[in-house]
């Protein structure tokens, strides 16, 4: 195991009382609680990580947060996790990982961890718990508002976690952080969420955030979800997301040991890791001078500070004097040397026009800390279409105005000075809480720190030779291995738009989404376009759109608990347990679990379906049809309303009778059907298809509320109120007479399409209907769902000696298809009229109804519309796959002949027990004129002959209906 040779003897926010061991690339290292994997690697002297994705160049750790482009890990485990930045992953004992070259792999193993969600509302959501977020949250909480403060880091404090000399209210800044955190914790209405990243911001202040709950625990608690997806609805959002430091673009800027200056400071102050012994600092602004002081205080040699600005700022001059460090104005790095880690940098002066001037000299060092300025983290503002504007003072894009009910504060708004930030953020907190009705006002804390000063944007340090189009070691996007030469190639093709250049080069498309490279790329594009006619300035070029997620979110987190048994809501009937006990296989219809068939010992599906069909056609069978949608309708105008909705008439339906009805969209296309009962003068009972129930109720309400509010009619869904058992077959009458002895079930007393209210032998009140979806004599018995299971068991027992056979949806399909009964959604697809189905009889010629006017359109009267027909494979044995296309014999079918004209397709296909052969239903052009014709069905490499027939293949005379 390597030792923590780079760890400073004291300081840092780590727990030195415990040593953790971990491995990266099979090398064992040590660290402490409080470390990230990156800080621990650096403590062990490991700078280099995986080589670059395309060019294979050595790369090192660059940053100390989510903006890291290079240090990506595949973290091991039962299901390993790809593309984890070492700079954000908390170190835990025993962690094992390997470094990646820009590309991880998705582990095919199932992720054993749990993920869940939480839906919360708040008055004020503060995103980011640096000085701005802490001040805003405290101000907002003072008046009693509900406040959520979240931050992606392991503890609150943001940039102050890396602070040194910064002070708040006269004390070290971290004491203030501790103080404020304690105060926030004491507010009942405040929720503090560390390790939580707000990654998506949506309309009406709907914000999604992912909380990492267990990755930092050595022994994860098994009952805790690993990650939690927070769905937050906020009255006000305060964005305090800070800023990311930008690198500089010069030759060899990707060499290991070249790091962002603030990252070097973070490792030094927060993690007590000195990444190098001799650090050259190159900057374009004042922020790096915080680092210079801290390095010197820690005993690290700073041979020179290179400041690109022509005149030293007050801060720079003061540093030079007080620390005795040489600070060189107009100075930039033009090249790096090392094997591979940087061992020396070459330095040159740069003039106001960005050209190198004068001689060069070389300075030895083991680390180059760079600051190319700061880019406010405006992603969440931008996701809501908040506008951005270029702020030349800080050389960065800042919010231009705010999104409604949002505020942006701190460096995210381009304000770097600590004192100004605390004042503005406090005001923002009051403003946000006040808007929510929780006003308050206390004095803001006063801060010292947060230097930035005037910034000289240096987008491109010229190479020592060649043209920009040849500068292939000036890296713009390290993660995507894209250079100045690549940008030049893009602009050379004529591209001027940043979105085009992004897609052409892939800059900003990596896991880091261009957090360090995005604005740099804009600067390089501006440099590339400079000199061309009407060259756009950097503000005009803008940045590529920021889209959610801000940082990658695992699909498992988005799925939450909706996996396995909880994948999708399922609906069951009161008889479900019986079906399970009796070995049913299930199919999902809508969300209902319906028995598909009931295989007995050793039976195949075909065997079971044949047996079930035989029972229904020759004996007696039963089916749970509870899933059909049911709607009760009442009103003086109920009949008139139904007349307008259904294609056929219901107004004059006799009380006690039932009628099949079809409803269409205004375009005349069928969308649902069912059998409806007239319960009394002003009451009807409608049934719908299993999957169509909710849609039909919405349809009825829509017409009632928007078109015919004058009609007296109301609706109530009663689908689950009733359990319905279909008793089917020539011997069904015997079974029903046993179950309902008070009922005269004779054909004369109880005709087809009638229903009766009765009390069953068990004492249950029930409604018995004589309706059939099989062509056989059949009844449907309805009773309250409380007694559904008892009803089913009674029917089963009553038919036992007659061999009553439960059947599932597959047999139901076979039986109805043999009779040519279509199923909406299977044999229709929204382009089929009732007339196409051969059901012109169900379409009234006299009354008006939704869809009627469409039957006078030329299109619905075409002779070559597709009709529902039966199809019989001529060989008597081929079961046609549903969806099979049908073509005319002799159709040219060589590839050179082009598309083969299709006449139609098979919509339903089964093996018929009654017919002793396979058959199907199909929609075929002019189908009713083709009865007897033979068409071809291409199945794989074969062309199967099929005969077109009437869709009614079983008992066309209808003799079976009455038993």
């Amino acid at each position, binding site marked *: 195991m390597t030792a923590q040779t780079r760890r400073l003897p004291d300081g840092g926010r780590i727990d030195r009382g415990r040593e953790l061991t971990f491995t990266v690339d099979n090398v064992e290292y040590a660290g402490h609680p409080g470390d990230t994997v990156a800080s621990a690697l650096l403590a062990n002297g490991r700078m280099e990580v995986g080589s670059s994705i395309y060019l294979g160049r050595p790369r090192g750790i660059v940053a100390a947060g989510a903006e890291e482009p290079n240090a990506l890990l595949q973290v091991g485990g039962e299901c390993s996790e790809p593309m984890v930045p070492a700079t954000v992953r908390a170190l835990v004992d025993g962690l094992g990982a390997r470094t990646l070259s820009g590309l991880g792999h998705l582990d095919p193993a199932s992720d054993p961890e749990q993920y869940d969600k939480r*839906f*919360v509302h708040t008055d004020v959501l503060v995103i980011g718990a640096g000085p701005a977020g802490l001040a805003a949250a405290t101000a907002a909480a003072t008046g009693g508002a509900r406040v959520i403060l979240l931050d992606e880091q392991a503890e609150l404090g943001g940039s102050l976690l890396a602070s040194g000399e910064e002070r708040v209210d006269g004390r070290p800044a971290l004491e203030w952080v501790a103080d404020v955190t304690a105060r926030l914790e004491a507010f009942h209405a405040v929720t503090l969420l560390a390790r939580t990243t707000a990654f998506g911001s949506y309309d009406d202040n709907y914000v999604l955030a992912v909380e990492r709950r267990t990755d930092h625990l050595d022994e994860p608690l098994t*009952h805790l*979800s690993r990650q939690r997806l927070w769905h937050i609805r906020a009255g006000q959002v305060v964005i305090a997301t800070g800023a990311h430091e930008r690198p500089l673009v010069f030759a060899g800027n990707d060499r290991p040991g070249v790091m962002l200056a603030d990252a070097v400071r973070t490792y030094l102050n927060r993690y007590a890791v000195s990444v190098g012994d001799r650090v050259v600092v190159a900057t374009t602004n004042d922020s790096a001078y915080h680092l210079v002081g801290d390095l010197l205080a820690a005993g690290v040699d700073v041979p020179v500070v290179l400041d690109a600005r022509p005149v030293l700022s007050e801060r720079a001059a003061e540093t030079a004097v007080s620390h005795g460090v040489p600070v060189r104005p107009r100075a930039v790095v033009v090249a790096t040397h090392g094997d591979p880690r940087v061992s020396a940098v070459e330095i040159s002066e740069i003039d106001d026009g960005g050209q190198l001037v004068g001689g060069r000299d070389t300075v030895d060092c083991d680390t180059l800390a760079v600051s190319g300025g700061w880019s406010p983290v405006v992603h969440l503002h931008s996701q809501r279409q908040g506008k951005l504007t270029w702020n030349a003072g800080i050389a960065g894009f800042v919010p231009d105005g705010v999104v409604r009910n949002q505020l942006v504060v701190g460096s995210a708004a381009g304000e770097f000075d600590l004192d100004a930030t605390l004042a503005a953020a406090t005001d923002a907190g009051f403003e946000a809480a006040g808007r929510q009705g929780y006003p308050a006002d206390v004095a803001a804390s006063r801060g010292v720190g947060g230097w930035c000063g005037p910034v000289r944007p240096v987008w491109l340090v010229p190479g020592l030779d060649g043209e920009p189009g040849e500068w292939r070691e000036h890296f713009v996007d390290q993660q995507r291995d894209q250079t100045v030469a690549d940008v030049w190639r893009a602009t050379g093709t004529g591209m001027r738009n940043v979105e085009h250049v992004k897609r052409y080069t892939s800059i900003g498309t990596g896991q880091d989404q261009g957090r360090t490279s995005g604005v740099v790329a804009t600067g390089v594009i501006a440099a590339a376009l400079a000199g061309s006619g009407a060259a756009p300035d950097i503000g005009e070029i803008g940045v590529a759109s920021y889209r959610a997620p801000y940082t990658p979110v695992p699909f498992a987190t988005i799925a939450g608990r909706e996996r396995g048994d909880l994948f999708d809501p399922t609906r069951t009937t009161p008889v479900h347990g019986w079906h399970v006990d009796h070995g049913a296989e299930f199919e999902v219809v809508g969300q209902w679990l319906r028995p598909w068939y009931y295989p007995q010992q050793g039976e195949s599906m075909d065997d079971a379906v044949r047996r079930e069909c035989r029972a229904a056609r020759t004996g007696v069978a039963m089916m749970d049809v509870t*899933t059909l949608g049911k709607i009760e309708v*009442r009103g003086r105008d109920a009949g008139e309303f139904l007349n307008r909705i259904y294609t056929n008439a219901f107004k004059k339906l006799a009380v006690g009778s039932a009628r099949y009805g079809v409803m269409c969209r205004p375009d005349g296309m069928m969308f649902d059907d069912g059998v409806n009962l007239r319960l009394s003068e002003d009451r009807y009972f409608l049934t719908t298809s299993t999957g169509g129930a909710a849609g039909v109720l919405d349809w009825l309400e829509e017409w009632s509320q928007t078109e015919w509010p004058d009609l007296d009619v109301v609706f109530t869904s009663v*689908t*689950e*109120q009733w359990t319905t058992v279909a008793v089917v077959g020539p011997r069904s009458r015997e079974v029903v007479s046993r179950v309902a002895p008070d009922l005269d079930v004779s054909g004369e007393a109880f005709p087809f399409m009638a229903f009766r209210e009765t009390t069953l032998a068990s004492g249950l009140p029930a409604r018995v209907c004589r309706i059939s979806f099989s062509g056989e004599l059949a009844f449907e018995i309805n009773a309250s*769902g409380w007694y559904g299971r008892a009803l089913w068991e009674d029917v089963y027992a009553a038919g036992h000696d007659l061999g009553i056979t439960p059947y599932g949806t597959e047999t139901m399909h076979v039986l109805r298809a043999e009779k040519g009964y279509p199923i909406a959604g299977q044999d229709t697809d929204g382009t089929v009229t009732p007339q196409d189905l051969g059901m012109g009889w169900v379409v009234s010629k006299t009354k008006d109804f939704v869809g009627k006017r469409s039957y006078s359109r030329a299109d619905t009267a075409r002779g070559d519309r597709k009709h529902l027909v039966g199809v019989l494979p001529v060989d008597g044995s081929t079961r046609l796959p549903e969806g099979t296309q049908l073509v005319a014999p002799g159709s040219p079918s060589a590839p050179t002949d082009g598309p083969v004209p299709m006449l139609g397709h098979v919509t339903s296909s089964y093996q018929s027990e009654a017919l002793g052969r396979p058959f199907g239903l199909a929609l075929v052009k002019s189908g009713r004129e083709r009865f007897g014709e033979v068409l071809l069905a291409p199945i794989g490499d074969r062309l199967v002959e099929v005969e077109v027939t009437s869709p009614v293949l079983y008992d066309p005379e209808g003799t079976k209906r009455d038993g």
Partner: protein
Amino acid sequence: MADLTTLRRSPLTHLADRMAAASVSVTVSLSEVPFLGMVSLRVEPSTPAATRVADVLGAPLPTGCGETTGDDDRRALWLGPDEWLVVTTGDPVVLTRELDAALGEDPGLALDVSANRTVVELAGPRARTVLEKGCPVDLHRRSFVPGRAVATTLARVPVLLWQTGHDAYRLLPRSSFADYVARWLLDAMREFNG
């Protein structure tokens, strides 16, 4: 008349043991409240019919989203401007008959829908947190209090959510969804009963 209560079976009978085993009174408990009577009521508000209905219920009908009126015997939950669900510990057949008579010839509908939904009770200090894992409604006590009821979703299942006590909620899913809802809640409770 036969004693029908021996024949009836509530939608969550099969999960009763699991719900009992998962319940911890100091955190969160789950149980079914079976066989409560429910009557679907539709009537034009502010009409004589609505007044007669209110007389039957012993309280004026609630008028806004989230409101309930009445007592345990007859509690009306607001579902829409002209739609309520009346939950009763009494006989729903009798109540339906009374409400139907109150409507008379006027527009509206009173219908026994007792089997259409079942009632699941979630109670305990962590009940709200469990619900917040899958319910988008603002359940904070500043916003949702005992006596409030709304139509919402839990884990993508439509439910009526009715807060009955400081830490007690009733969920009224359609009976067909009851099994899924109960299994989802059992899963969500694991954090607090492990």
